[in-house]
């Protein structure tokens, strides 16, 4: 059995589903706020903390996201950088067929780790 929580801010919805092995954060809608990090960062920090404490893989699923401004990219890459330096397991999932997602998220390959802890996956 998993636990699900939904966080909504303006046009953006983050649905966090947690089970024994993983924490899945599904992004839907648009992230257009002036300071989106205020909403996003606490959710990501909490997921990363739980991931470390309980050895769960965090998946950031962007496939349903329609748009995000550049201020939204900042908390995401800061989370990936910290995951890369730490022990957290994180997967970024995006839609390769959507060009803007392919362009933005494939560039996050720079955070990929050789041991597979941090993965960037286009589907």
């Amino acid at each position: 059995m998993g636990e699900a929580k939904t966080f909504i801010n303006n046009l953006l919805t983050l649905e966090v589903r947690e089970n024994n092995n993983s924490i899945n954060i599904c992004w839907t809608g648009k992230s257009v706020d002036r300071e989106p990090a205020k909403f996003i960062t606490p959710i990501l920090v909490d997921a990363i903390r739980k991931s470390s404490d309980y050895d769960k893989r965090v998946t950031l699923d962007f496939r349903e996201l329609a748009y995000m401004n550049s201020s939204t990219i900042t908390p995401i890459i800061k989370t990936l950088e910290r995951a890369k330096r730490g022990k957290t397991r994180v997967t970024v999932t995006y839609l390769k067929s959507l060009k803007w997602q392919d362009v933005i998220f494939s560039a996050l390959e720079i955070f990929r780790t050789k041991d597979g802890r941090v993965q960037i996956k286009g589907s």
Partner: protein
Amino acid sequence: MSPSRKKDPGNSKKRGSIKDGGKDRDWRNGSSDTFIVREKTPMKRSMKLTVKPNWEEIEQVRNSSGKFLRSHGFSGDAVNALTMVISELIENGIKYGNFKEPENKVILTIHIGSRVVTVEVVNPVDETAHLHLRRLDRTIQWIRGYQDPFQAYTERIRAVSKRPLRDKESGLGLVRIAYEGKSILDFFVGDDNVLNVSAVSILEEDSRR
């Protein structure tokens, strides 16, 4: 206002400004300040929006711009890229513009050429924008130093990702315009303290449906 990379050539007429003749005004969303002016000629198509400096206006501008671009046959991917460019430039205009006077607004112009789309965002600035203008100048020069904007983008991502979580600064907007929007950025400040930032996007073969 200094610094400026390129001075306005001394008149108030901007590149591709809308002419009086034959324009078609289209009032949207009941807003008394946001309107569209379309001009169609055999070689060029334009849209002009006057935008109130409220963050909530940006999404309306994205929708209007997307509709305009789609009506001219642009593909979904091209519309996404161009509306991203428009949004990022308007965000900067609202963040760093001088809107102390109620008549001060952000003005967006989109010009569709046969091979390029030019996005221009114009807004008044005052002395408090000095740091922003220096950073704008430095960032555009820095991006131009890279043959491939992808390299500039990944370098900036690396740098920003190492900053503290509480640090509000993104610093990714312009480099994203260059990389994802495939655009060449430029700016100048006119004698009337009006900042004009332009992004010229070179159209790819699959940009139109």
